[in-house]
Structure formats: structure tokens, C-alpha cells
């Protein structure tokens, strides 16, 4: 009998045109903690979904305990001894811990749930693995860490011998992380195989025994944790060649257009943004780097006014707009290219003309603010303007009436960018402006942003792509766990340094990058 608990052989999976997994081999040795690392979109989630039976592979083999398996659903995976703790918990808030743990596999006595047996089961599992928990507590009242322990107990109650933890520390406080790692080590010592899916280097070094790094759907590195370094992992994770599209260098800086002073944002009891301060001046592009979900989006929402701040002030062009509605902020000089192009950036069922007119519909030439026909829009003016923008932004379309939802990603993004740049606002927030956009369009969008800066306006650029930040930004701030943990000038910035700070390595190791 081999020592491998699980072997994945040549797993491939496409979603439409995107190859999420491309011939991935993964061997999980019994009783080890195996970290699966990679940036967003590297294919970690798809691979784990395949392993847990949520997604079926196009090709490849899954071998559990030496036996080839074909999982039709998670039930088959559970039966084969797998358990998964999802990043977003799947718990019943109104029920107790014990009810959640035994749900679907309840101990009974005379047709009734044997609560004493359920509690005893939870207690014994909790004791064996060091999972501090109260079986009678209502799950809705528990902290994120305690809920995670319930998820782990659920898997253990079903006798999981292979435990997949998907980004388990994303919602935890540092002390909860420490106790989770104790649990993980204890489980591994007891013979359980733990798969830790993460992009945080420090965690991998702290708790794993082996590491597999994924990049662009393929394995880009296999390491024994004891024999590797954080630098080596960073390189394997972010190692694509960085093509530096020349930023012509800092021009003259003008007045400050955005000031964020000690802003915090709390959402659903979790502090998403902690005491962030930054400023953007005319003539500069300030980049915000960070792995998705470290508070960047919440910060943008706070500046835009779609999320209230719990502390701090936001000033646009010197005016305090904290608490002001979105419209007031926009008229104070703010334009936004949102991250969610289809949900927030555009109205997908509406035409290109209509989308390009949004927000411009009250001002001439489209709107008629006064006189005869007041309150009506001039559709000929909207069409003329739209066809000008279509040609100047090179939007590939069958016509200005085409719904934005049927455009390719790059062309839809050009519509959003054309509309937002047309506001001529002193401050532009560009959130992931080239996400899901093809190479040609990326170049065009980057050119537009640099032109916008050159015309003496300020840009706050949020991106998960280090290469994009290196290409465009004059300064790069790195957000991690809701805080700005590092700041690099253009001259100091490098992919490795930003990448390490993004992964929390700088913060965790106490290294000083900012100098």
C-alpha cells in the first residue's frame, strides 16, 4: 500500500475558453499538511472543487487510498473519506453546534435525535483534536473562528481522513490562526491528511510539510517546506515575466485631489479596512496592491460612498465628503471604473449608447437642463457622442445599439472607461481596470490611463496584477488584512518586494520594506 492518501493525475478542466486546470498532478502523502498555493485564478479552487466532487474534471484521474474514483457529487467524496471546509461557511445559523455537526448523519433513539449522544460525539471529537467548542451554542452567535471549528467538526464527524481547508485563515484573527494551526498539526499527527489552500506564504512556512504551487492552471513548483524559502515560493507563485510598459516618469505634481484620513470600514462585524490614510495628487497614479479581499474593494466603496465608514474622513478636492451621497461625491470631482464590470460598471441589457450616456444625461449636449424640452434627453446627440467614442476608443461592435452584455470583456470595459474618463474628474478610481481583458485592450487601457494622468489629473489604481502596478503607478501601497502594510516608490518597487508584502510576509516577519 502506498503512503499516498490521494493522488491526482493529469487533471484538466476548462470553463469555456479558460483553462482552469491544465494537466495538474498532485500527490498528498498520508498524515501530512500539504499546502496548495497560487494567486487568484491560478486554479486552486477548481482543483479542490474537483477533488471534493463539486466539479467534474474534463480528464485526469482521482485516486484515493490506491483506488481510482469518480466523484459525481460531494457525497461520493465524503464517502471516500474527504471533508472540506469551505471559505464561505455552510452552516445553519439558527441551529446549535451539535445539530450542525450531526446534520444528515444524526444519532437517534426511538426515532428521535439522541441529543445526549450528539453532544457527547461533539465533545469527544473536540477533545481529540483540540477544537474548543460548546455543543449547545447557537451557531449564529459564534465568531468566525468558532464557526470554522464547527465546519471542521462536521467533516470529522463523517470520519474524514483527508481534510481540505480552503483559505481557512481569511476570516480569522491572529490568535485564532494560531489555534487553527495547532488543530491542523494535531490532526496530521493522528494520521489525517490536511490540504491547506492558501496564498499566504507565512502560513505555508509555518504549518505545512509539503507545498505545491500553481500558476496559470499548471504546477509551477513542488517543495518540501523545510527546504524552501519565502523568496523561492514568491518566485514560483508570481514568476511570470514582468513586461514593463514604460511609465514616462513622474510629471509635475499638482494639488491634492483625494485625502483619506484614518478610514476604517466595518462590514458584518468584521473590520475590512483598518485606519487607512492616503492621498492622491494631480499628475500621479497611486497604485494599491494586494491579494483580492484584503480590503481594497471596501476602501474604494468607502471613497465612492456606497459603504459607510466607521471612522475617519474622506476629502475630495479639499472638501469633506464623509457621509455625503454618491452623487455629491461624483460632482465634487470623482469618476470610478468599478471592479464588477457587469454588476456595477454597466447596465448589460442596455445599449452602448445608453451606457455611454449614463451620468452624462443631465448635461448638454445630451441633457437639456433648461428651456423648452427641459428634462428630456436628446437621443441624436447621445448617438453622435456614442459613435465618436466608439471610434476613438476602438470599441469593436456591430453598432451603437448593441447591448453591452453581448460585447467581449475588453470592449465592454472600454465602454465603461470611455464613460468615466468623459467626466473629466480630477480623481479617477480605477479598480482592476484590465481584469479579464485581452492583451490588446490592456495596452489601450493602460495608454488611456497614462494620458489621463498626463493631463494633470490623479488616479487611484487598485490592481491584483503586480505587473500592471509596475507599469503604471508612481507609488504603490500594499494592502494586507485591511491595512496598508507597505509603500514603495517607483524606484524601489519590484515584483518580488510587492509580492512578498501582498502575501503578508513582510508584516508577519516584521521586515521593514518601506525604508
Amino acid at each position, binding site marked *: 500500500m502506498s503512503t499516498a492518501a490521494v493522488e491526482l493525475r493529469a487533471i484538466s478542466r476548462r470553463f469555456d475558453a479558460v483553462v482552469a486546470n491544465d494537466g495538474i498532478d498532485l500527490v498528498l502523502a498520508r498524515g501530512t499538511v500539504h499546502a496548495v498555493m497560487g494567486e487568484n485564478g491560478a486554479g486552486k479552487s477548481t482543483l479542490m472543487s474537483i477533488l471534493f466532487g463539486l466539479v467534474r474534471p474534463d480528464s485526469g484521474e482521482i485516486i484515493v487510498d490506491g483506488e481510482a474514483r469518480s466523484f459525481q457529487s460531494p457525497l461520493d467524496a465524503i464517502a471516500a473519506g474527504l471533508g472540506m471546509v469551505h471559505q464561505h461557511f455552510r452552516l445553519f445559523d439558527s441551529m446549535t453546534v451539535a445539530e450542525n455537526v450531526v*446534520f*444528515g448523519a444524526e444519532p437517534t433513539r426511538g426515532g428521535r*435525535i439522541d441529543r445526549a449522544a450528539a453532544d457527547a460525539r461533539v465533545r469527544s471529537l473536540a477533545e481529540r483534536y483540540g477544537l474548543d467548542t460548546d455543543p449547545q451554542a447557537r451557531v449564529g*452567535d459564534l465568531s468566525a473562528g468558532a464557526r470554522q471549528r464547527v465546519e471542521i467538526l462536521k467533516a470529522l464527524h463523517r470520519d474524514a481522513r483527508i481534510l481540505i481547508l480552503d483559505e481557512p485563515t481569511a476570516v480569522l484573527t491572529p490568535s485564532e490562526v494560531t489555534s487553527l494551526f495547532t488543530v491542523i498539526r494535531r490532526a496530521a499527527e493522528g494520521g489525517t491528511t490536511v490540504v491547506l489552500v492558501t496564498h499566504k506564504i507565512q502560513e505555508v512556512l509555518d504549518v505545512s510539510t509539503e507545498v505545491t504551487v500553481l500558476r496559470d492552471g499548471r504546477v509551477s513548483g513542488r517543495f518540501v517546506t523545510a527546504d524552501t524559502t519565502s523568496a523561492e515560493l514568491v518566485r514560483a507563485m508570481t514568476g511570470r515575466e514582468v513586461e514593463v510598459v514604460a511609465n514616462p516618469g513622474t510629471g509635475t505634481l499638482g494639488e491634492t485631489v483625494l485625502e483619506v484620513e484614518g478610514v476604517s470600514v466595518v462590514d458584518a462585524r468584521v473590520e475590512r479596512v483598518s485606519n487607512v490614510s492616503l492621498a492622491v495628487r494631480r499628475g500621479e497614479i497611486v497604485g494599491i496592491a494586494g491579494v483580492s479581499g484584503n480590503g481594497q474593494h471596501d476602501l474604494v466603496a468607502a471613497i465612492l460612498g456606497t459603504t459607510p465608514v466607521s471612522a475617519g474622513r474622506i476629502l475630495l478636492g479639499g472638501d469633506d465628503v464623509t457621509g455625503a451621497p454618491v452623487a455629491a461625491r461624483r460632482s465634487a470631482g470623482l469618476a470610478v471604473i468599478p471592479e464588477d464590470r457587469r454588476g456595477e460598471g454597466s447596465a448589460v441589457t442596455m445599449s452602448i449608447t445608453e451606457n455611454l450616456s449614463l451620468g452624462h444625461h443631465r448635461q448638454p449636449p445630451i441633457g437639456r437642463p433648461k428651456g423648452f424640452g427641459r428634462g428630456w434627453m436628446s437621443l441624436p446627440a447621445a448617438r453622435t457622442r456614442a459613435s465618436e467614442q466608439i471610434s476613438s476608443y476602438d470599441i469593436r461592435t456591430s453598432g451603437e445599439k448593441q447591448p453591452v452584455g453581448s460585447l467581449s470583456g475588453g470592449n465592454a470595459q472600454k465602454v465603461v472607461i470611455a464613460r468615466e474618463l468623459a467626466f473629466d474628474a480630477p480623481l479617477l478610481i480605477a479598480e482592476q481596470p484590465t481584469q479579464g481583458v485581452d492583451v490588446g485592450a490592456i495596452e489601450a487601457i493602460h495608454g488611456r490611463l497614462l494620458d489621463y494622468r498626463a493631463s494633470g489629473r490623479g488616479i487611484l489604481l487598485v490592481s491584483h496584477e503586480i505587473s500592471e502596478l509596475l507599469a503604471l503607478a508612481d507609488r504603490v501601497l500594499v494592502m494586507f488584512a485591511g491595512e496598508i502594510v507597505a509603500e514603495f516608490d517607483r524606484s524601489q518597487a519590484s515584483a518580488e518586494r510587492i509580492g512578498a508584502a501582498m502575501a503578508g510576509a513582510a508584516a508577519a516577519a516584521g521586515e521593514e520594506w518601506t525604508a
Partner: protein
Amino acid sequence: MSIFEWSFVAAVLTSATPILFAALAGALCAQAGVFNIALEGQMLWGAFAAVAGSYYTGNAWAGVLVAVLSTAIYSVILAVGAARWKADPIIIAIGTNLLSLGLTGFLLRVLFDTSGSFAPQGLNGIGTMPFLNGIPVIGDVFAGQSVLVPLAFVLIVAAGLWLRLTPGGLRLRGVGEHPDAAATLGIGVARYQAWVTILGGGLCGLAGAQLSLGNVTLFTENMTAGRGWIAVAAVILVANKAFWLPVACLGFGAAEALGFRLQGIGAPQQLTDAAPYAITLVVLVIMRVVVTRRRTHALTPKETLV
């Protein structure tokens, strides 16, 4: 004439019972995550089926059985349409509600050659419980009632216990609260939802039977007159707090019984007809406020612990 006496309590229960059955059906569906607004139409069908069954067999209990079974079958339209084929339950429910109204009126003409109301000579209603006479209070309240009146309370208690104590009840609640989580633990979500909807149909059959063979012994077109909607409102407004459900239904019963009394002392009929619905709405809104406030109070201290 005194307004409060034991016979008044009996009248309250009589009025409340059909709504209790329907609200129980709605609440069980809500627990499983099915928003069932087909109660009105199902209850109306049940009322018709009970009278028809009793008329043809000469036995009221056979009528009740016909009502329960046929309404359960009737509810398969909603159960399978929504749970299995993912159709919009609201649209199906509106359809079946309208269908009931038209179908019962149509069958009234075709089968019994009458319109408006059908109260043939010798139609058997559900018997009362005269053996309770002489027992103080219980006799006063229940002796003149059909067996379905106490049954409604028994079923509510039984349903509450089943939801709390058995694996099936736990799973049903889980299906309603977080279907994805239940599905990943191997629960057939659609199957649970379909069966609870069909069970709800059976309960609406009981509701209709009590209305047409218990409260009275006749069928009139649209005789449910919004009682199913009162049950829907009760289910929504008590926010699935099972304990409050009978309270809401009894509130309606009390309002209706009071209306009859007021009619007896000469209040205008329009007023007394409208009163139960108006009073019920007020009661439900007040209860909602009370329930919500309690829940907030209960949560706040725990939240600060986190």
C-alpha cells in the same frame, strides 16, 4: 347579553380552526424554504371536495378523507412545479388559487346544478362531541365542536415536536435555512420541499373540510373568503416562530366571533364582515413588532461577546 362566556370561546375556536390548519401548512412549507401562497385556493378546493364527498357517500368522514386526499393531490401541481421543475412558486400559486375559484364554481353547476351555495337536505356534517357534556369548561368549549377543532391543536404541537426532535424535522429546517449546505450533506432538497408542500395540501384539505362540514354544513362559492390569505399573512408576520402562529389564528377567530356577536346586537353587517380582517391585520402587525423587538433584545448581549 354578555359578550364573554364559554360559548364565545367555542365560537372563537370554531372560526380559528380552518385558519390554524392552513397556517400550519404554510408554516411547515416556510420551514422548508417554500413560500406557499396557494393556501387560499387549496382550502377552497378542500371545502368543496369535503361537501361533495359527504354528499355522495352520505358519510362526513368520507368527505373529510376525500378533501384531504384530493387537496394533497391538487397541491402536487405546486410541489412538483416549484421543487422539481424550478418554476416560480408565486405564479403557480396564483394560478391554482384562481383555478380553485373557477373550478369549484364550475363543478357546483355541473355536478349539483346549482350556483351560489349548495346545502342539500341530509348533507352530513362532521359530528360534535356530546360525550364531553357535563365536563366543566372542556364540555362548554368543545362539546359542540367537530373533532377537527382539538385535532388542529394536536397537529400543531405534534408538528412542533417533530421539527425539534427528529432527524426529519432537523433536516427540513436545514433545507429551508441553507439549501446548499443541506445538499452538500446529502439531503435531497427538492424532495423534502415537494413532500412538505404535499403534506401542506393535505392540511389545507382539513382546513376546507372544517370550514364546510364543521363550522357549517354547506358549500358556497368562494366560501374561504380570504382565510387562506390570513394564514399566509400570519405565517409571514410571526416569522416562523411557531408559538405565535396559533395566537395569530385565534386572533382572527376572536375577531370573527366578535363580529357575529356584534351583528346580534344590531351593528351594521358591512362593519362586522370587515372587522375580522381589519382586527387580524392590527393584531398581526402588533405581534410582529413584539416578536421582532424580543429577538433584537435576545441577540444584542450575545453579539457583543463575539
